[in-house]
């Protein structure tokens, strides 16, 4: 009798414990399924549609965010350079290349998952498609560095991890048929201030 009870309690505890823990873990981040990866930049095109999967919906219910809808745009996130090393604000990174076709794009620094905001005027923590210097063929080079740089420069803080978000507005990337090759800018580390 007692053994029956203990076995039953064990089963119930396993169900509740594992069920709750896995649900909390799975809704704490955007689902890994349906992720779109272009040259290391990742996005979740499904979240902007009118029938999001239950995990994306649960994630936004928990986090309270307001994602971009499908006809508004698509946000790509990047946390590591092309070599796979996580971004460190103490280092200099070069973002070189071009973006897929979009009416407009914004490139921003994320700290702790949110767009970085500093009170100092004149220090750029984000750039957009119309306020950058480009090469003759339309490609660009943007440096992320703790000190001002010639050309296009973004400040990501003086140290610590950060992420980059590239939001494409009015883009057809999510509905691309694969007929054309999509390219996102390459991100390489050019050196570190602290060695």
């Amino acid at each position, binding site marked *: 009798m007692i*053994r029956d009870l203990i*076995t*039953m309690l*064990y*089963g*119930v*505890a*396993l*169900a*509740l*414990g*594992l*069920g*709750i823990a*896995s*649900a*909390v873990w*799975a*809704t704490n981040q955007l689902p890994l399924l349906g992720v779109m990866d272009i040259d290391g930049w990742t996005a979740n095109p499904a979240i*902007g*549609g*009118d029938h*999001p999967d*239950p*995990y994306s*919906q*649960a994630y*936004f*219910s*928990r*986090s*309270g*965010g*307001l*994602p*971009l*809808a*499908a*006809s*508004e*745009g698509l*946000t790509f996130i990047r946390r590591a350079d092309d070599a796979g090393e996580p971004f460190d604000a103490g280092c200099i990174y070069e973002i070189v290349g071009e973006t897929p076709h979009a*009416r*407009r794009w*914004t490139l*921003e620094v994320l700290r702790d*998952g*949110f*767009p970085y*905001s500093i009170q100092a005027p004149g220090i750029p923590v*984000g750039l*957009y498609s119309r*306020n950058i210097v480009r090469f003759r063929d339309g490609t660009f080079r943007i440096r992320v560095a703790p000190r001002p740089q010639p050309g296009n420069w973004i400040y990501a803080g003086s140290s610590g991890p950060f992420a980059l978000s590239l*939001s494409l*507005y*009015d883009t057809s990337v999510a509905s691309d048929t694969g007929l054309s090759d999509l390219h996102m800018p390459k991100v390489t580390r050019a050196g570190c201030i602290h060695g």
Partner: protein
Amino acid sequence: MARFLHATLVGLVGAALVHVAIVLMLPHLSANDVWRQIEAKTSLYQPARLDRNGDGPLIAAARSLDPMFAVTACRYDLSDGVFSITAPGNGDFWSVAVLDDFGRIVFSANDRIVATDDLELVVALPLQLRALQQNPRADFANAIMAEASRSEGFVVVRTFRPDATWEPVAEEFLQSVDCRANPL
């Protein structure tokens, strides 16, 4: 031993059920989702600026919004009648999204969908939409029609505002946003 294995198996199946139940129930139970924040902080048919460059962030979700965009929300209740939101065009990019009271995106569009540059969007329940089709109204002649299955929700309008010098442009556009209920 067999008893223990049996209990583990039952526990694992139970865990899967608990997992699915929590994930599916979260949108109904969450007190933190964007709809609850909008519902608590804005009044019906009153445009409210959401982004951090407005009068200070109104809702917690503002932190995650693109700081280069000015964002305005308007809350509606279709039981008052068909909802319409209008604004004269600003000659630049704008986008609009309709979300229901689960925070789900129902409809979205940008300035390229309209023939003129002006924003004119009507949100209606399926029955209201059918009534509108049978008796077209002249004031909705150029409007985009969006169908919503739930009567409560809100509309989000985004305009480009990369830095403070764009503030007058964004502010003028957002000031001209007009939200109203149109009883049929």
